[in-house]
């Protein structure tokens, strides 16, 4: 009955095979390359769906399988895969978005010379992400975690001829690496203190969910949780390390949808869910997580209000929504976090792909150079609108239900964070309506050089599929139907539901859109009015709180200074010593060559000097 679950390890191998095939074939097989990539993703999707349907059975038990990898003394490291309800849900998200992005890219990247390389990278990313989802212990998880980071680096820097793309790729890699260092430390500490050094998730669950069975002390638990959370901060773009995500928008737009909206950045939230027992065991860690998430949500939403680049707005929106998920986790509502991850993956991928469709048509990312596209690109406009409404939290779109689940649990647990969440929701609705009205409504900008047409079918069909999901995906968990929560957690988590949260959330969503419509649609509020009243605030938001400048001043410069001094040390001290020895050897050789003038007496003299040296050494050793 669960034969598909037992073969779940095959799922990542489909895209991996596609990657190998694409790499082997080279760049000339353009059409075949697109087919291979898409078929690999499709096969993974079908397998994931089969596994998922098996998991729907309420009697399904978690299945894990593996083999011994390394044996060190009496410690054995196992690797393997594990299928739980959470994993199977993630499998669906990853494979579905990946497949749709594959289809979409056939149109979006059509003219790109390196399209097969692109498909190869996407296949590799899909493989890594699926491996991450299926991994059954922390070490394998970490390996795949780094692998998705590499794929992100490769794909952000895909158009490496652009200096900005190169810089963004490096930034994405280095900034997430800071978080990953914390994650690695967390894994090491965990390894050290776990009974039997077990790193698999089921052991972690057993040890930490027993309510501190005494195996690991409170302070250790807290430090492990905070170290793991560093990894989450890096990967999921939480507050101090969020700076890479907006810059990562230099990559191709399908990549922004796949990696930087739906899947990879959600890996941090997934990690929180996977190691949720560790966090739950430490109240201090939970509070930290919740406040970081809440702050990120409001902070990024405010920045998104003042950006002018369509992808940057969506990137800050992603950061903000990830903040929501992290906040939900910190408030103890794993269901809320995962639910929002699930719906967000669909509507944010939809928004990015629709934005890509717009960019593809008008060849600019500046929203003020667009305008009036609604009548020319109907499918894109409608689907983008659905995504925007979903993101803004308007019922019955999916984003409303998941955001409401988070806000309801916030209202129960921490009223302060509830207010923060509401404020962020208002900003979300405001910036989305601003984006929508500026891009699709109003009069068309003068700077549209040619006839703007709707994108090709391969780009619009994924939009339609995602639009349907954005509308429908929310009904798996509603205030009166806690199916997802009971399915995910085995019925252990209470359903947070309150009319107050629903009303407040709808109210701020509608209010945000109404204000946005007044400002950017109807124009009855002067657009610059708010900015004119508080120019410093507008400037602060537009420059993203000067965080990049701050990091540049405080961290980048000092690190670069250290690097330069170390480089100088290398150049002058180590390099100098090397050069000196080279010079000394060559000069000594020259001098000895000059001594070899073929005269017997010189040979004799050399022999005598050598003898004297030997005698001196032998005698000298006595007195040493």
């Amino acid at each position, binding site marked *: 009955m669960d034969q598909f679950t037992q073969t779940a390890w095959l799922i990542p191998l489909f895209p991996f095979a596609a990657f190998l095939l694409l790499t082997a074939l080279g760049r000339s097989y353009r059409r075949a390359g697109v087919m291979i990539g898409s078929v690999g993703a499709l096969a993974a999707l079908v397998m994931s769906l089969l596994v998922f349907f098996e998991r729907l059975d309420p009697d399904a038990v978690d299945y894990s399988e593996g083999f011994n990898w390394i044996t060190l003394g009496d410690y054995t490291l196992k690797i393997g895969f594990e299928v739980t309800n959470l994993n199977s849900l993630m499998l669906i998200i990853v494979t579905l978005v990946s497949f749709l992005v594959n289809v979409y890219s056939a149109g979006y990247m059509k003219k790109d010379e390196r399209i097969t390389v692109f498909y190869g990278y996407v296949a590799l990313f899909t493989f890594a992400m699926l491996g991450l989802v299926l991994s059954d212990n922390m070490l394998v998880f970490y390996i795949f975690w780094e692998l998705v980071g590499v794929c992100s680096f490769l794909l952000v820097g895909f158009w490496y001829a652009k200096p900005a793309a190169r810089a963004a790729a490096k930034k994405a890699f280095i900034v997430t690496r800071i978080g990953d260092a914390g994650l690695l430390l967390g894994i090491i500490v965990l390894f050290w203190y776990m009974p039997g050094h077990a790193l698999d998730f089921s052991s972690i669950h057993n040890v930490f969910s027993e309510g501190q069975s005494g195996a690991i002390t409170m302070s250790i638990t807290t430090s492990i949780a905070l170290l793991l959370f560093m990894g989450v901060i890096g990967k999921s773009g939480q507050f101090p390390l969020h700076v890479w995500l907006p810059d990562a928008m230099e990559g191709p737009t399908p990549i922004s949808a796949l990696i930087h909206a739906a899947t990879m950045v959600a890996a941090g939230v997934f990690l929180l869910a996977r190691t949720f027992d560790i966090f739950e065991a430490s109240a201090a860690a939970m509070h930290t997580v919740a406040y970081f998430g809440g702050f990120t949500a409001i902070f990024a939403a405010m920045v998104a209000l003042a950006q002018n680049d369509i992808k940057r707005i969506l990137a800050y929106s992603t950061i903000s929504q990830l903040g929501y998920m992290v906040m939900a986790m910190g408030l103890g509502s794993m269901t809320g976090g995962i639910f929002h991850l699930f719906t967000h993956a669909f509507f944010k991928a939809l928004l990015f792909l629709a934005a890509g469709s717009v960019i593809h048509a008008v060849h600019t990312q500046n929203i003020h150079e667009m305008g009036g596209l609604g009548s020319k690109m109907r499918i894109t406009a409608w689907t983008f609108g659905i995504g925007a409404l979903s993101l803004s939290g308007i019922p019955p779109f999916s984003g409303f239900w998941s955001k409401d689940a988070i806000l309801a649990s916030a209202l129960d647990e921490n009223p302060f964070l509830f207010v923060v969440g509401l404020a962020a929701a208002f900003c979300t609705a405001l910036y989305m309506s601003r984006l929508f009205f500026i891009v699709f409504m109003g009069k068309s900008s003068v700077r549209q050089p040619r006839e703007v047409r709707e994108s090709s079918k391969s780009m619009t069909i994924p939009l339609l599929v995602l639009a349907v999901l954005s509308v429908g995906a929310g009904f798996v968990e509603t205030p009166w139907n806690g199916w997802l929560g009971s399915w995910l957690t085995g019925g252990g988590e209470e359903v947070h539901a309150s009319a107050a949260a629903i009303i407040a959330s709808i109210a701020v969503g509608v209010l945000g859109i109404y204000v946005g419509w007044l400002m950017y649609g109807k124009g009855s509020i002067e657009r610059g009015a708010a900015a004119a009243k508080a120019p410093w605030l507008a400037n602060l938001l537009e420059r993203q709180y000067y965080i990049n400048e701050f990091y540049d001043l405080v961290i980048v410069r000092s690190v670069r200074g250290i690097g330069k001094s170390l480089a100088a040390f290398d150049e002058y001290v180590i390099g100098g010593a090397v050069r000196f020895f080279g010079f000394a050897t060559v000069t000594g050789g020259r001098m000895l060559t000059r001594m070899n003038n073929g*005269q*017997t007496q010189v040979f*004799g003299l050399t022999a005598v000097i050598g003898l004297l040296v030997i005698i001196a050494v032998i005698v000298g050793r006595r007195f040493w």
Partner: protein
Amino acid sequence: MLPSYLTMAAILFCIGLYGALVKRNAVIVLLSIELMLNAVNLNLVAFSKYGVVPSLTGQIFALFTITVAAAEAAVGVAVLIALFRARGTVNVDEFDEMRR
């Protein structure tokens, strides 16, 4: 008595070494080598008489060395004459064929 002989032999050896390394004339170089050999002979004889374990072996060995030295001098002088015929000089500075 032994230190006096040894000192004498050492002085003789150093003179010989100096001559062998410094003198230009090949004949004098050969003579200096003889001087060094004789310094060694002096040592052998001195040790055979005044050494810790006096024995005739040293004196016999000295005689043996004299014989070998005579043969060496004969060969050396013969080589020198051949060289003089070929190069027209006995100045050791001129003989630098071993440079290559």
